[in-house]
């Protein structure tokens, strides 16, 4: 099993850094180019959602991304201070709810499973799984 942890400040400029790093990790794990592209989009969405919610609710809390490569699967956990893809917390701003709806559609389509778990202190983790 291989684990890599990346932590970024909750600012949108750093989401691209996570995408690049995760694409490199996915290639090293032997994923096809199409699967690398899919994972890049899914992780980018989960990270952007976490950053958007953190910027609103907890701007000083970083977003953590944990990559785990096991024998038969790759798991990427994105930990934010708020719900990583729940529109209810950011509906105040016009257009964000529609964006979040598209984001969830992308997340649900591009990885084998996508689930959210609660963590102590109100924070949540989006867990994306790709079966190898």
């Amino acid at each position, binding site marked *: 099993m291989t684990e890599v942890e990346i932590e970024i400040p909750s600012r949108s400029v750093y*989401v*691209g850094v996570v995408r690049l790093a995760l694409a490199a990790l996915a290639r090293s794990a032997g994923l096809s180019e199409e699967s690398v592209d899919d994972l890049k989009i899914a992780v980018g969405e989960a990270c952007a959602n976490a950053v958007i919610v953190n910027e609103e609710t907890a701007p000083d809390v970083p977003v953590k991304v944990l990559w785990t490569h096991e024998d038969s699967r790759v798991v990427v956990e994105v930990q934010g201070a708020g719900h990583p893809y729940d529109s209810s917390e950011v509906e105040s701003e016009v257009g964000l709810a529609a964006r979040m709806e*598209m984001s969830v559609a992308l997340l649900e389509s591009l990885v084998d499973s996508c689930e959210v778990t609660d963590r102590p202190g109100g924070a949540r983790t989006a867990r994306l799984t790709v079966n190898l």
Partner: protein
Amino acid sequence: MELGIDVSKVDSHAVVSVSGEIDVYTAPKLREKLIELVSEGTYDVVVDLEKVDFLDSTGLGVLVGALKRVKAHDGGLALVCTQDKILKIFKITGLTKVFPIYSSVDEATSG
């Protein structure tokens, strides 16, 4: 992670050629450009995505917002895209039914 935006005129259309990555960080730059075009009275817009490497939901939101703005003036917004990885994003989100998508700028401006 740079976003390039180049605007040219073809007949009555503004052709916005975008290059690079349209994501949560760069999308506001595209939003501003599209709002500027509409405020200048350009309501027929073609967004050329052929040189775009990455597009996320924030970028999609910007395109949908621009479509609403031009439609409010009886205009239209068409896309140029032949890249499978970008088309896939429009298909998953159901936006292939919302935007006319062409394979070249020529087609989009005559369509």
